[in-house]
């Protein structure tokens, strides 16, 4: 294995174009674990953390651009980002321990391709957009469009993410992320939900998005669940409809962490509870 520090994103693309087994390295909290457990090393590991600007959070058009090398700890310490997208930040902060937070990135969480990746449902609900650089140049792609299958994304050969953009939002808006795990820390989601809401002055939901994690081969957007919340103040009936739409969108696996039946039920419960938190953060009183 060779270890290469990329000077800029062009160099990353050029290296990825060469016919070698390459592996990108951001925080390394998946990469190093995998290399260690499989005892398999790529020809070349490309460290992207020294690319100028890639370790920074920058304000842009009222939203925030999160560089691909920004750690979870950096996001948690950024009070304005936390105020604008509390649900995305709480999802990122659930990744691993304090030590893992010191390294792990949101882009790495997405690109690792785990169906249970905590930040992904929150990014979907937030309509986050990834900036992708590749042989054809730079493009902006919704995170949703990059989801593919367990362990892989739709990024093309020689493409990689340089940053993820979380857009501006109106005043009366809030988001939240919740996961179910059998303990309070350090475990992988059995079912999870990210919800983002926008309210009008009367406290009625006018925009909603609901996404689930760990209940299908990739995180999923559930438009039926979002529709159930729009036009309501999250009364009992719309919450019930939201949970039912979530259950219908689940196609989970059965494993020692949770049965199909359990995951299907809990996904709806997580979505409803996250919706209530998002609603309160938006200034609503359910």
């Amino acid at each position, binding site marked *: 294995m060779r*270890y290469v520090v990329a000077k800029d994103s062009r160099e990353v693309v050029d290296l990825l174009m060469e016919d070698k087994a390459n592996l990108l390295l951001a925080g390394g909290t998946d990469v*190093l674990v995998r290399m260690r457990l499989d005892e398999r090393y790529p020809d070349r590991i490309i460290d992207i953390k020294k690319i100028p600007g890639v370790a920074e959070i920058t304000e842009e058009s009222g939203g925030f651009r999160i560089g691909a090398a920004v750690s979870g700890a950096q996001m948690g310490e950024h009070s304005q980002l936390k105020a604008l997208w509390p649900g995305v930040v709480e999802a990122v902060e659930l990744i691993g*321990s304090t030590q893992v937070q*010191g390294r792990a990135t949101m882009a790495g969480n997405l690109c690792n391709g785990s169906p249970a990746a905590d930040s992904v449902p929150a990014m979907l609900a937030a309509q986050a957009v990834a900036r992708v650089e590749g042989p054809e140049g730079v493009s902006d792609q919704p995170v949703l469009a990059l989801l593919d299958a367990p362990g892989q994304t739709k990024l093309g050969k020689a493409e990689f993410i340089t940053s993820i953009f979380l857009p501006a939002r109106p005043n009366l808006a809030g988001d939240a992320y919740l996961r179910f795990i059998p303990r309070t820390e350090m475990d992988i989601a059995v079912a999870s939900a990210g919800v983002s809401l926008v309210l009008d002055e009367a406290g009625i939901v006018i925009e909603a998005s609901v996404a689930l994690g760990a209940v299908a081969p990739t995180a999923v957007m559930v438009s039926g669940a979002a529709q159930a919340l729009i036009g309501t103040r999250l009364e009992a009936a719309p919450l019930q409809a939201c949970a039912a739409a979530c259950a219908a969108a689940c196609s989970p696996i059965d494993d020692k962490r949770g049965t199909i039946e359990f995951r299907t039920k809990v996904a709806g419960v997580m979505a409803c509870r996250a919706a209530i938190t998002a609603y309160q953060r938006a200034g609503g009183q359910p």
Partner: protein
Amino acid sequence: MSKIHVSTQVNGDQVEFLCEPEETLLDVLRDHLNLTGAKEGCGTGDCGACSVTIDGRLVAACLVLGAEVEGSAVETVEGIGAPDALHPLQRQILQHAALQCGICTPGIIVAAKALLAQNPDPSEQEVRYWLAGNLCRCTGYDKIIRAVLAAAGEMRGENP
């Protein structure tokens, strides 16, 4: 394969080493620099026994390549206190009998010191969450948490 030349700071001293690209920072500390305070409990980020800081940021040394610390400042437990001048965390861990086999202890000291640097007056819950990635097979955690809270009090200048 050619080795990588890395120059970095460890516990305030300028250090140069050669490492294989596959070697982790933990391998480098223990096998090349003779700093065996950081322990390998798991090698996969789960136990926290290898905790060190890089540029003040708490990390698991087993999840960082040696080559990645070029130009950084690494702090390990060896940089904290001295046998005749223990750090308050070290003294309180002894006084509270907050260790048995001691494998987790260096990681706990490094992690707790990083917590107190940014939050000198943590609640019990904050200490428990911060140290959730530091596993201890022996003590049942309670004495560790109380030792950290006592050290925090001592460092704030409160009399025990």
